[in-house]
């Protein structure tokens, strides 16, 4: 399987040696980025590796090596290698696939890896018919031709499987092309159109809306063309305290009018007009959203208050405040409320965050709910190349299967007269998995032997 070209540059790019070298270099250099943390601030590298090493890292783009010029150059060479090597070899493969097996000379037949001769006491026409029937019984579809002094039968299976490896190459190129189409760097630097493909994030406080996101790395502002409002952000917990769900309930607004509402959870993103929003983080705010109702007067008040501040609700003649909190990290799990309606001792009690508590006081019955205000961290991405990547992935799996597990199998039966009887030469070959083919071939020949 040496490339047929004699052109030195082309044969270099078509060579398997280059492919092996590139695969090795890609594997070896990729290790660097798994050991040296990527995309940390410059001060981190100076502190951890010293100023000199940090300078070297910067020079070689080690701190963002998978986007560095030299790594991208390796990938480009790899793609070039795939293209040239496939183009060099395809004509030969096409020739092999289209070659008519009936044009095979007796000399070539005698060179096939699997051969067997057999004599049948029947004239050539009858013997050929029997051999053809046998081939059909074994699932082959033989064609027939007259050759010099007899007949030749030929049948083949899976000639197209020879393309399998090249389809794998094509699938890799599709994935790389898809990555290029979806790359935000290409969109902003080459296409000069950052809206075409981007990845970014937004920290969106509850009850607020945004109409832009900030691109990763560059920090560039990217307008969405619509706005997104976070109505509620909620964390649910399992009984053992592990987080169960992070959920942002959002509303999409077009020209200020709500057009759809949705819940964004981890693994359940929201896509609107080509932009997909992912739940990625949250920030617990320092303020609390209080809902108070008083019965039987049927009064309600809502307020956003910080802790440790006395707030008054004049309509009900009530003063209240948050005097203590029980936090898990930044997340408040319980709050201690101080509540006074001016009659008797003020009430002091704990309420779980977000849950409603009823309080019976001389002045009436109160229901109190205190909820921490959050900001939800959303990731936003627009990747017009992802369908190309996915198609490439699917194609790769199919093509790998074809390339590894299907083979091009060929059988010939040459029938020659030898006096009153006929001599049959069975010949066969397979380009892969010859052991399995050898068994099939032997079974075929045995079958005729038994029915002779």
């Amino acid at each position, binding site marked *: 399987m040496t490339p047929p070209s004699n052109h030195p540059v082309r044969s270099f790019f078509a060579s398997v040696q280059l*492919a092996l070298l590139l*695969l090795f270099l890609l594997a070896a250099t990729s290790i660097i980025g798994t050991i040296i943390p990527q995309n940390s601030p410059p001060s981190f590298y100076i502190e951890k590796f010293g100023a000199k090493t940090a300078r070297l890292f910067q020079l070689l783009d080690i701190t963002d090596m998978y986007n560095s010029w030299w790594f991208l150059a390796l990938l480009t060479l790899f793609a070039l290698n795939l293209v040239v090597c496939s183009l060099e070899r395809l004509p030969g493969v096409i020739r092999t696939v289209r070659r008519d097996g009936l044009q095979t000379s007796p000399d070539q037949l005698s060179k096939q890896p699997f051969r067997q001769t057999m004599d049948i006491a029947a004239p050539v026409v009858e013997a050929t018919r029997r051999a053809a029937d046998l081939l059909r019984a074994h699932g082959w579809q033989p064609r027939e031709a007259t050759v010099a002094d007899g007949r030749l039968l030929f049948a083949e299976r899976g000639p197209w499987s020879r393309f399998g490896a090249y389809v794998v190459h094509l699938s890799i190129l599709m994935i790389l092309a898809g990555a290029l189409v979806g790359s935000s760097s290409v969109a902003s630097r080459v296409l000069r159109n950052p809206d075409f493909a981007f990845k970014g994030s937004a920290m969106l406080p509850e009850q607020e809306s945004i109409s832009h996101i900030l691109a990763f790395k560059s920090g560039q502002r990217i307008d969405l063309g619509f706005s997104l409002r976070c109505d509620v952000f909620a964390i649910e917990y399992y009984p053992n305290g*592990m987080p169960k769900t992070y959920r942002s309930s959002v509303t999409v607004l077009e020209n200020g009018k709500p057009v759809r509402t949705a819940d964004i959870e981890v*693994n359940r*993103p929201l896509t609107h007009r080509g932009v997909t929003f992912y739940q990625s983080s949250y920030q617990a705010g320092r303020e609390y959203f209080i809902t108070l109702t008083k019965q039987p007067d049927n009064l309600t008040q809502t307020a956003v208050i910080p802790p440790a501040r006395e707030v008054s609700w004049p309509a009900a003649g009530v003063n209240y405040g948050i005097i203590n909190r029980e936090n898990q990290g930044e997340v408040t799990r319980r709050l201690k409320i101080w509540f006074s309606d001016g009659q008797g001792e003020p009430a002091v009690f704990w309420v779980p965050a977000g849950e409603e508590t009823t309080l019976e006081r001389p002045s009436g019955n109160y229901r109190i709910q205190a909820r921490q205000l959050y900001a939800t961290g959303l990731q936003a991405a627009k990747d017009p190349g992802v369908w190309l*990547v996915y198609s490439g992935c699917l194609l790769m799996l199919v093509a790998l299967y074809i390339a590894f597990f299907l083979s091009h199998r060929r059988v010939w039966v040459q029938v020659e007269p030898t006096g009153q009887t006929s001599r049959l030469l069975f010949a066969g070959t397979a380009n892969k998995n010859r*052991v399995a083919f050898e068994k099939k071939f032997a079974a075929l020949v045995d079958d005729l032997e038994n029915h002779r």
Partner: protein
Amino acid sequence: MDSSQLFGITMIAYLFSAAFYLGLLIFKLPRAGQIGMLLAAFGAVVQTGALGLRWYESYQLGHGHAPLTNMYESLVFFSWCTALLYLFMEYRFKARLVGAFVMPCVAVAMAYASFSDRIDDRINPLIPALQSNWLIAHVVTCFIGYAAFAVAGALGLMYLIKRRAVQRQAPPNSIDGSLPELRVIDDLTHKTIVFGFLWLSAGIITGAVWANEAWGTYWSWDPKETWSIITWFLYASTLHARFTRGWQGRRLAWLAIVGFFAVFFTYFGVNFLLSGLHSYGSS
């Protein structure tokens, strides 16, 4: 009877199976090989039941997820895949001595899962990041690949031992001389690598699709991703070297062993030594 008792029985069965296979290799007792095979098959059956039971138990606890979510469960699943793959190979290719190389690996994985301090064998509910239908597809495809590469690595080692025996003309009834023919081991190694490569590719792809679903990027060069692609590059080179440059025999055996180290690092090293998106796999 709960699943952890069944896993205990599995582990003991695998340990004895490994011992009997080694007995076959060292003492040339065909009966030892038969017992080893029966124990391995028994272990695999019990383990299948245990995996199903653990799945059921997670529903009883109100979590309801496949037993594929932490280091303990992944080790158990790895040993299950490897044992089943080996048993299939023994049935299909009649190379029983391979068991002396594969079953110790299976037994060690089970024993490590059961006894290591840093491995938590409780059934925990799923954190939000793991609540996805891609979980099963991703883990199953990856681990079938890992299991195949573990078997290929064992075959590579076996090849090297046999080759040394051939070189010093060891008698055919000696330990190493009685191993299958070099040509047979070489062919099996290649077949196993091809099988593993297909599943590893599927594992990387399902992982990429899942990452895109969860984080909005199908490839972020996180250490686990990077090491899986390093492994993929390595086996891709191995296959090209064989198809086009005729690398086989000793070179293929070494590549199978080196490849398994890359797999091992992707599986363990990344979780324990490097940080990244797969950190939940380390406990």
